[in-house]
């Protein structure tokens, strides 16, 4: 694992296996004095309160983490999302992947996913587990508005737009699930580590 300072109040830690990111994030979040532990695709940023924790101490805690033994984020929680595969990019993705649209749907809906991290906007979860045949590039020019509930893919990830926003991912379908609700605890339906399945509706 690589660990490096990120300004005065944070460390950026990169586990050797990116699939360990959710475990490392949960472990960092559990440390007393860590204010925020944020995951990305490959790395975890642990932001600490210097009055309660030093960079040296946090570095040692992260370096000694046994990620294989501790999987605190992998609760047995699985969320099933009903999806209408009616996305604007379904045909183009099928063509790029040299599959039929039905095969794209079959591959997308048959995989087991897990939230590696949340980013981009509140409640937007980047899901691990996308079939390698469906790894496609983002649109070069993002759409100015992607509807809320759009189920989309880009690169190695699939995700769902929690609210209408600009976005460059390839749209495969739509779900009615409430991905983000500030009156709920937690407000995000898909939290880091959550397992996800898509069910064609």
């Amino acid at each position: 694992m690589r660990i490096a300072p990120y300004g005065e109040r944070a460390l950026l830690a990169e586990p050797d296996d990116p699939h360990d990111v959710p475990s490392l994030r949960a472990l960092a979040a559990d440390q007393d004095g860590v204010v925020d532990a944020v995951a990305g695709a490959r790395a975890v940023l642990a932001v600490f309160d210097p009055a309660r924790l030093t960079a040296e101490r946090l570095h040692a805690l992260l370096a000694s983490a046994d990620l294989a033994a501790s999987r605190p984020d992998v609760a047995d929680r699985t969320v099933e999302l009903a999806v209408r595969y009616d996305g604007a990019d379904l045909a183009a993705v099928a063509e790029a992947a040299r599959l039929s649209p039905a095969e794209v749907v079959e591959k997308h809906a048959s995989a087991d996913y897990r939230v590696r991290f949340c980013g981009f906007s509140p409640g937007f979860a980047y899901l691990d587990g996308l079939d390698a045949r469906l790894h496609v590039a983002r649109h070069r020019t993002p759409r100015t508005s992607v509807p809320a509930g759009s189920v989309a893919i880009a690169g190695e990830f699939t995700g769902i737009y929690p609210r209408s926003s600009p976005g460059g991912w390839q749209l495969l379908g739509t779900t009615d699930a409430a991905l983000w609700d500030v009156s709920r605890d937690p407000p995000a339906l898909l939290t880091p580590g959550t397992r996800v399945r898509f069910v064609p509706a």
Partner: protein
Amino acid sequence: MIEIVAAGPLTTVQDAGRAGWAALGVPRSGAFDRAAAGLANRLVGNAPDAAVLETTLGGLVVRALGAATVAVTGAPCPGADFGVARTLPAGSTLSLGTPAVGLRSYLAVRGGVVVEAVLDSRSTDLLSGLGPLPLRAGDRLPVGPAPCNLPSGAIAAVRMPSGPFRFAAAPRADWFTPAALALLTDSVWTVRSDSDRIGVRLDGPPLPRSRDDELPSEPVLPGALQVPPDGRPILLGPDAPVTGGYPVIGVVAEADLDRAAQVRPGDTITFRSGSGSG
């Protein structure tokens, strides 16, 4: 209760923000110039993280519907007694003119602005749409009960500090050529007009990268100097997203971050390698 008579170019409610929610994709948000917001609160006897009004380039006019004790800090606006607690009689108004230097001014009201909190904060997050909408003429804002502390009799000095922004190289500094770090510290950077609470966008010589591949989305922080493909750095502000897809060359020292709130389009700034205590 106070009423917004005019909101100027942009006035929002801000407090200490939403630290602790970043893992769900929630930006920190909160007052951009945290020291100025904290000072305004201390002057009226509030806790330092009480919600205040953050106004951009002045233009804010408020009416006290009941007598209210207020203080204004940050960019010095003509028309307001600056850096001192002052009581507005019921029905009177306070007008903040356009500051000659600086960008963001803070108006604290004794008792704090107690609009509904979202995820433990009353801050407006312009990127995510969390918290109250930017304020408009006619909005009425509830004020909380007076705190135990009395308003301060102190007069705070108006300081708009200058000098280079100190920064530490970030883990992705190796995505840039060695010349890029020298360019960052040796160049004069002009603040672009499309700067906002999400980021202070800078104009100057493009910072050359040593590799062209795409960076997998990575967590970022306010204060990070993120460099998009055009090579011009963006100093991320409080409403920046929690992850970004471009490499970060450096992270600005905490002690200098508040000053990023006060640079305005056309201002020039410089950077110097070093930590906050230097």
